[in-house]
């Protein structure tokens, strides 16, 4: 019987490259590489100004079958403990209510990042020409699919087994009204999959994964445990075991372009922009979720940030890449200033805008206020007094007729949104490093909060056209916008978001918001 040309080609190749006698993963990997698949003439679908070398190696050297065995064992452990032991001990109901709300944000948002990372690493597979390097990216594509499912599963588990499901389930339907969504999409989506393919790798692997997965995915397990959450460490530590491979992929991406002289013209610029892009959102948001979204504190966010972002990543990791011409980002110094106060500034605004969220926020208790003041001297005079005033005006009670955003309006403290990062800021009531810059181009005004973002916009204005909620809903009444943006629970009237986590507290409805008569106004129109 005649054999197909493919079978003949495989038979001929095997005659030259004898199959290994053992099934050791490393030996099989070496054998597979000996086929010297020729991707040298590979023409990527994606734009990149970098030339990736054809002989780049991969550090993990995993073959797909070995990979599948390893990951299936991890999944068995993870889902086994979640569905057996943790369900039997009612673990999801033992989580502190404040932390339950934080996980609505953390896992839903990380799911978006993991989902976009699938596309990002697929793009890198397409762009690379070295077989080993492609193999490394292939492993990561599979990882990211797994992580997307894991993040989705966390919210599913909390919704099914735990307390207050609203927001764990179907958070994405509120994406048009919540101001945190757009900044998250900027880092987790645009940053990972738009622009130069190698720049995307720098955003995802060199900064997102090598820099921020330690403070995000590892630190979150400590905060979760401290607040009674046994599910998140089970899942997130399983995710983190794969992140090392991703960091190694980021390292090898840099190695693959290092010998191209042209790369030196772009690499540190792309790294600086990628770092600023990622930190501008993660630094305040992670600090806010950990400190304000928990009852039991682990350590001040500024210490976590200094240890993992400034010293471990900015010093050691980037230092190791120094021989390839990589320098610590110039913006790292400014980021360090933000690490102290930016999350406090953001929580003030986030609480003021609570009806637009898909989670419940809680004002700091007296005990927590002491912790903040002890760790951030000056906190009380800036933030503590404001929270006391809001509480005294009944901000948690639907009958009070008071929304904290009114305090900003009454005291002439306009809230702006940075065009590039999409992070809200209030320059007249802030201890962070943000400064207001407003520019007009062809009749449209744009606000920025720092020099790095302003330069990114001036260099590529067509990349940062995202409209913010003040522009989108100018002149619209708040309860109408919440209803239109699906920010209500299954009864069609009670808000998903609430300004407290008290089981005895009354829940706000659309009617409570409507009677206040809060109307969106674009602060840029007043300038």
């Amino acid at each position, binding site marked *: 019987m005649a054999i197909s040309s493919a079978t003949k080609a495989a038979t001929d190749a095997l005659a030259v490259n004898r199959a290994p006698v053992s099934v050791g993963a490393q030996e099989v990997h070496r054998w597979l590489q000996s086929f010297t698949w020729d991707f040298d003439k590979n023409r990527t679908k994606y*734009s990149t100004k970098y030339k990736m070398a054809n002989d780049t190696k991969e550090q993990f050297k995993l073959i797909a079958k070995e990979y599948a065995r390893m990951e299936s064992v991890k999944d068995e452990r993870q889902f086994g403990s979640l569905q057996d032991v943790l369900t039997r001990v009612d673990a999801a109901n033992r989580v502190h209510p404040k932390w339950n709300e934080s996980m609505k944000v953390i896992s839903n948002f990380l799911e978006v990042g993991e989902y976009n990372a699938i596309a990002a690493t697929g793009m890198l597979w397409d762009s690379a020409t070295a077989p080993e390097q492609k193999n490394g990216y292939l492993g990561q594509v599979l990882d990211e699919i797994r992580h997307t499912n894991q993040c989705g599963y966390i919210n599913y588990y909390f919704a099914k087994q735990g307390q207050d499901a609203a927001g764990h389930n179907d958070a994405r339907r509120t994406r048009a009204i919540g101001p945190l969504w757009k900044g998250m999409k900027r880092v987790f989506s645009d940053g990972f999959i738009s622009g130069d393919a190698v720049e995307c790798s720098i955003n995802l692997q060199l900064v997102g994964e090598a820099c921020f997965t330690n403070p995000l995915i590892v630190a979150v397990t400590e905060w979760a445990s401290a607040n009674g959450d046994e599910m998140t460490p089970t899942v997130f530590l399983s995710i983190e075991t794969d992140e090392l491979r991703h960091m190694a992929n980021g390292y090898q991406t840099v190695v693959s372009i290092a010998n191209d002289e042209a790369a030196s013209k772009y690499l540190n610029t792309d790294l600086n922009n990628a770092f600023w892009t990622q930190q501008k959102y993660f630094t305040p948001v992670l600090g806010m979720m950990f400190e304000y979204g928990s009852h039991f504190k682990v350590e001040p966010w500024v210490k976590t940030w200094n240890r993992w972002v400034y010293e471990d990543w900015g010093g050691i990791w980037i230092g190791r890449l120094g021989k390839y011409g990589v320098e610590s980002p110039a913006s790292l110094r400014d980021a360090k200033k933000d690490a102290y106060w930016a999350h406090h500034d953001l929580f003030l605004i986030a609480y003021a805008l609570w009806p637009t969220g898909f989670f419940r926020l809680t004002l700091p208790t007296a005990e927590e206020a002491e912790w903040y003041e002890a760790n951030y001297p000056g906190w009380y005079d800036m933030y503590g007094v404001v929270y006391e005033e809001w509480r005294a005006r009944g901000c948690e009670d639907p009958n009070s007729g008071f929304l904290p955003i009114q305090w900003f309006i009454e005291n002439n403290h306009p809230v702006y949104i940075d065009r590039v990062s999409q992070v809200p800021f209030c320059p007249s009531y802030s201890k962070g490093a943000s400064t207001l810059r407003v*520019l007009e*181009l062809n009749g449209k005004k744009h606000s920025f909060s720092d020099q790095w973002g302003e330069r990114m916009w*001036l260099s590529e*204005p067509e990349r940062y056209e995202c409209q913010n909620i003040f522009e989108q809903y100018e002149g619209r009444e708040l309860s109408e916008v919440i209803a*239109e943006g699906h920010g209500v629970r299954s009864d069609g009237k009670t808000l998903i978001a609430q300004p407290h986590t008290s089981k005895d507290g009354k829940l706000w409805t659309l009617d409570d918001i409507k009677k206040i008569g809060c109307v969106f106004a674009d602060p840029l129109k007043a300038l």
Partner: protein
Amino acid sequence: MANIHDNPKRDEWVKKIAGLTTLAAGHALLKDFRVKHMNPFKTDWSLELDGQWIECKIEEKVALLKRAEFNDAKFMNNCTCGANAQEVADKAVAEMDACTDMYKAERIHIDFRLACKPPVMPVNVFLDTDRLLGTKLMELRNTDYYALPLEELRKVRGVKVITLQ
């Protein structure tokens, strides 16, 4: 009740789009709409909130008219105005290859997208051309990225400073 998804501006355009009966008319409307409302350097902001939705609806209609009027060969090789797609693409790439100024390069790239984004140009030609143009633009933009101080960069970009703190 008018809202962000359902409002008189969109209704007006839905009627206008429904009235398109030929590919030539659809192409002309789409080209004009993109230049006026989808251009990153536009001065008319009247459709800032609804422009992308309306553009999508025009594209849907143009794609249907194209399917009705083009045979298979034209579908793969011609723009909706009838021009040979590869010739249009080659011209844009040649112009970009000769360009050494990042501001001119970004105009070339933006103009190409406004004029040719599918369904105007067949996807197989458009995407590869977009890759080539984008690669060159990124090379120009990222070279000497910090050469100009922000004050100079604002002037070059032609922005008006409203507030600087």
